């Protein structure tokens, strides 16, 4: 897939009309094809040493997330402790990619992760619905950045996107990106509300054009959340972006990934669709809360030669 090569990407974002022309000029997604390919790649079997390596890679890619109304500083501190050292009995287990919290808990999370190298991601811009005006969204972002967040997970305005106001969505992402400063920006497309793969592809390109460092599938508050085919489409988008611009942008599936088996399927997709250079926490993350427990359990199963149980790893 490649967009009309005569169009310069800087020209694309000049006005609403050219943006629309570009996004609607993207080739359509072959729904049956992408679903079949995702299913086929999902059957690939990863064993022994490769599996162990895949598990460690997946652990380092986890954005350990808690986004509940009932979150407390205590819970966030527990989470950061687990993020720094996921399995205390095995010191060689890598730390996770980041912890992901609401903006008011960023300061707690920053103190908790210390200098371990674990990032602190904060959702912002009226998460999860994105239903507020730009001033509030920017204030939300600044709150998180000032508290020390190194990554911002913003949501796009799905209402504007679905009614075709691409320019508005674009401007918002650009504004939030500016407010982020040095922090990485992940743009949540909420693919569960976009209804078609074509829309997912358009939203992905829109977010990449606007400067998002990552494109993220979902908030985790809407079902369906991340699925393999949707992630395929998004991985194709970042691959095509690299082909056109030479820049590497990341992808983050979030929500509904609970088992090691699922996680490995995603890693296979990353390797096959985008390429091996994406197999790093800098370019691929899992938004998940319970996935880490299963990864640790399966890691022990591999090392100890028998099945492990939830009595032997921390379960939150």
């Amino acid at each position, binding site marked *: 897939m490649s967009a009309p090569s005569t169009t310069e990407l800087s020209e694309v974002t000049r006005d609403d009309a050219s943006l629309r022309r570009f996004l609607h000029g993207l080739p359509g997604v072959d729904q049956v094809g992408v679903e079949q390919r995702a299913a086929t790649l999902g059957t690939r079997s990863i064993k022994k040493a490769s599996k162990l390596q895949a598990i460690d890679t997946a652990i380092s890619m986890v954005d350990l997330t808690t986004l509940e109304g009932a979150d407390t500083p205590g819970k966030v501190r527990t989470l950061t402790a687990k993020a720094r050292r996921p399995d205390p009995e095995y010191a060689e287990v890598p730390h996770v990619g980041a912890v992901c919290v609401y903006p008011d808990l960023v300061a707690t999370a920053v103190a908790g992760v210390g200098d371990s190298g674990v990032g602190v991601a904060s959702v912002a811009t009226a998460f999860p619905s994105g239903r507020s005006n730009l001033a509030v969204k920017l204030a939300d972002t600044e709150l998180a950045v000032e508290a020390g967040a190194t990554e911002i997970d913003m949501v796009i305005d799905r209402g504007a996107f679905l009614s075709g106001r691409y320019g508005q969505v674009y401007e918002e992402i650009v504004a939030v990106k500016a407010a982020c400063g040095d922090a990485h920006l992940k743009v949540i497309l909420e693919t569960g509300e976009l209804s078609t793969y074509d829309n997912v592809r358009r939203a992905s390109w829109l977010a990449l054009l606007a400067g998002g460092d990552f494109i993220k599938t979902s908030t985790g508050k809407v079902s369906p959340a991340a699925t393999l085919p949707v992630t395929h489409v998004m991985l194709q988008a970042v691959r095509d972006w690299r082909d056109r611009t030479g820049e590497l942008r990341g992808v983050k599936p979030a929500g509904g990934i609970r088992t090691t088996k699922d996680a490995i399927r995603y890693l296979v997709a990353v390797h096959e669709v985008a390429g091996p250079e994406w197999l790093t926490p800098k370019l691929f993350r899992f938004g998940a809360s319970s996935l880490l427990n299963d990864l640790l359990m399966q890691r022990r199963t591999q090392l100890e*030669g*028998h*099945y*492990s*149980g*939830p*009595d*032997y790893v921390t379960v939150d």
Partner: protein
Amino acid sequence: MSDRISVAKTYKLYIGGAFPRSESGRSYPVNDSRGGFLANASQGSRKDARDAVAAARKAFPGWSGATAYNRGQVLYRVAELLEGRREQFVAEVAASEGTKRGESIVDAAIDRWVWYAGWTDKVASVFGASNPVAGPYFSFSVPEPTGVVAVLAPQASSLLGLVSVVAPVIATGNTCVVVASQDRPLPAITLSEVLATSDVPGGVVNVLTGRTAEIAPWLAAHADVNALDLTGAPEAIKADLERAAAGTVKRLVRSGRGEPDWAREPDVSRLRAVLETKTVWHPMGV
């Protein structure tokens, strides 16, 4: 019509209330006591055992949390269904074990089930206690189910023995993964069909068929299994199974060489084997 070709069945496993094929795709022929073909059964693998343990763990909170009275009613209902299938059981026991006493064995098995069903709401008063302590406290000891129990069913007694090891485990509120008799699995398969149509929640009893020596070591070492019944374990690997089980401090139900006489009147030892005791101290009133 005498030359009609009969439909030979290929049975499946019973995991989490469903009847899946073995993950490995294998099956093996089951023969009667004279070597004649009876049916095909799934040959379960370690991954089937893993799935079965996960199903049993998932079913545990609901089953152990049900009231003892409710559990009793559910088990009595199973006895009714066993009664409804008695002719099938008699035929299978007779074919598998090569005995003419099929009828009386099935009778005994159903009676055994009812006997254990009656124990559900008596366990707490028989094994529990209000302890006399030197201080201003009430002290109670209450029996609680151990958790997920892996049961290696007796190899010879395919129905009466099976019922005698499974019924006490679930009557006390445990959930179980049963590895059926390797060469005589049909009564166990029929029992799983009975359980699937009864009120016993899916996952409380999971039945695996296949090579006991292949599946048992994985269950013995599995960290999410809390107890292991060695009754049907092959002599050659018994010691290894015990060692593996010790790695995660499982409760063991040991058995001597050879099978016990299942027709003998049962006692409470099998109930007690899969119970833990919780003791609560409570300050006496003001």
